């Protein structure tokens, strides 16, 4: 029996007495672990909860904010309460002015007329923001002219509006018959306002008609709509800030600031420390393009294709490497008035002076599937939230790290003697973010979006001892372009 066997036999199953206080300490430490802060619950659960909250919030918001619709059952009263502003052409302004003059000549009792027109170059545009009001306006005008057997010549191409007018005729004849024309004119206000450097003719009234009389109007009012040739520019064109369906293309670029998380299997904590010691994440990026669809309610969905690249720097100073450095010594002597120079060359070895630097690249092809909600602050600007899942296909990882022996090794898929730490694989990640959108026009929008992208599953192989996941904040900018 050799000495190894003697010790092994005696000590292999030997149990030493342990101070009971140790168990108390362990118990105390474990309790502290149980009371660890919220982030120990796991980012995946927090992130999923966050996405859920965002989606629920968006749905609530959508439910609580009704779309801008006109209730046709209460048109006259609504019309009185609304401030109707319609842009008309320069030609139409002169017509409007004629109407004002005519109105003054007829000395009809009405409300004030204001004129502040300075700029005659006005686009032939009616923003859809006021579609409902415009529609109502024309309906009322038609109704009124019908009452006086003076049909309106409606030059607009929107035949549906004429049809809808009939629906209101009967109902509003009573209204008009009960309107005291001499004191209150339904469309008595013709207001010329200057707004946003353009001239507007605002039709409608700020007055509230609350009293109805039995006096029937005796003559047509100035409100005959005939002169108002209302022209619409791109009336049917979907716009990102209108309550319509908008199919669109999008493309974006993201500046990614990856936050890596390594988790070691039990017993490999030292190896994890080595990985963290020599590797650091760096600025990364992704870019994507795809299609989206915005609903009239502000909710939008997007599908696309994305390329993503996470970049890290591996920097390893090998203590066993030796760098040879040349030292040249020149001695200069003066001898008998002459300069005698003597040079000597020597080499010294500097250990640990060689540093290996490799830029590791983790590449992904992603298929993002997004759902979001956009809330229009004004016609030019909106804010929103979005969240979704991303199908990741990781491929051709390239780079180096240290193995358990603290030796630099390649893990690139093309390296012949590589460590099998990464492989092509499919996984799922999640993202959420907010976005601010500036509408450059009816068909194009520019947006900036701070986002968080979470890759909960390790990108390493199952057999590799270190799990490698990411939580990547990103700042993304992009463009949406309406297809129609």
């Amino acid at each position, binding site marked *: 029996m050799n000495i190894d066997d003697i*010790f092994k036999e005696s000590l292999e199953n030997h149990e030493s007495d342990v101070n009971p206080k140790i168990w108390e300490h362990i118990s105390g430490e474990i309790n502290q672990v149980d009371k660890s802060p919220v982030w120990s619950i796991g980012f995946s659960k927090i992130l999923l909860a966050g996405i859920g909250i965002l989606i629920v919030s968006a749905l609530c918001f959508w439910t609580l904010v009704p779309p801008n619709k006109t209730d046709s059952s209460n048109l006259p009263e609504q019309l009185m309460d609304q401030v109707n502003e319609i842009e008309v052409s320069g030609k139409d302004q002169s017509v409007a002015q004629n109407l004002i003059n005519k109105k003054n000549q007829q000395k009809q009792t009405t409300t004030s007329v204001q004129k502040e027109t300075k700029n005659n170059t006005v686009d032939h545009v009616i923003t859809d923001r006021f579609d409902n009001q415009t529609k109502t306006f024309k309906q009322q005008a038609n109704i009124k002219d019908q009452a006086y057997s003076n049909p309106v010549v409606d030059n607009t191409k929107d035949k549906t509006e004429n049809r809808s007018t009939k629906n209101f005729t009967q109902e509003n004849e009573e209204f008009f018959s009960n309107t005291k024309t001499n004191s209150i004119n339904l469309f008595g206000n013709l207001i010329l306002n200057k707004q946003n450097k353009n001239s507007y003719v605002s039709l409608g009234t700020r007055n509230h008609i609350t009293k109805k009389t039995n006096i029937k109007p005796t003559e047509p009012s100035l409100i005959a709509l005939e002169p108002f040739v209302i022209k619409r520019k791109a009336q049917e064109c979907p716009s990102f800030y209108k309550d319509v369906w908008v199919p669109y293309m999008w493309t974006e670029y993201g500046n990614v600031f990856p936050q890596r998380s390594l988790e070691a*299997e039990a017993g490999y904590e030292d190896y994890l420390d080595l990985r963290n010691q020599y590797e650091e994440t760096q600025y990364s990026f992704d870019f994507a393009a795809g299609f989206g669809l915005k609903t009239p309610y502000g909710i939008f969905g997007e599908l696309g294709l994305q390329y993503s690249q996470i970049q890290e720097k591996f920097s390893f100073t090998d203590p066993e490497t030796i760098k040879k450095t040349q030292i040249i010594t020149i001695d200069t002597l003066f001898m008998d008035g002459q300069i005698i120079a003597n040079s000597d060359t020597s080499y010294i070895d500097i250990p640990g002076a060689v540093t290996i630097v490799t830029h590791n690249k983790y590449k992904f092809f992603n298929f993002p599937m997004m759902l979001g909600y956009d809330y229009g602050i004004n016609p030019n600007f909106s804010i929103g939230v979005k969240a979704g899942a991303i199908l990741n296909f990781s491929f051709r990882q390239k780079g180096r790290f240290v193995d358990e022996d603290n030796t630099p090794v390649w893990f690139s898929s093309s390296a012949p003697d590589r460590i099998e730490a990464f492989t092509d694989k499919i996984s799922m990640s999640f993202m959420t973010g907010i976005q601010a959108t500036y509408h450059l026009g009816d068909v194009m929008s520019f947006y900036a979006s701070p986002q968080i992208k979470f890759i909960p599953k390790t990108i390493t192989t199952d057999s590799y001892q270190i799990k490698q996941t990411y939580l990547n904040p990103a700042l993304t900018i992009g463009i949406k372009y309406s297809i129609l």
Partner: protein
Amino acid sequence: MIEAEDLLQEGFIRVFKNLHQFKFQGSLEGWIRRIMVHSCIKYVTKKINRHELVEFTQENELVEKAIAFSNLSAEDLMKLIQSLPIGYRTVFNMYAIEGYSHDEISKLLGIKPSTSRSQLVKARKMLQKNLAKLQKLVG
């Protein structure tokens, strides 16, 4: 002894923290043992003075003498091991008690396999010498 207790505590805390990683493949005892051993190795590799691990250029295998140790208790043997320098003690424990090979020891401790062998030889020498002394004392 205090160090051992600290390591025991640290090892068990690591066990509980990583309990979710136990996949019920193999015995729980083996898994805990592995964590404990790694905890100790981590401690030792930090503390160990590498200059203590002097490499033998030529290995001198001991001609071990058969000595009757039947009257020595496990506690006595433990004390003998604890009397070894940390480098000797670590390699001897890993090789003789835990059953690691020299290649495994070299990887775990970050030393060369030849260094592991030389440390083992030195540990054996010292243990044998101390054992003989103890044997005389015990009688």
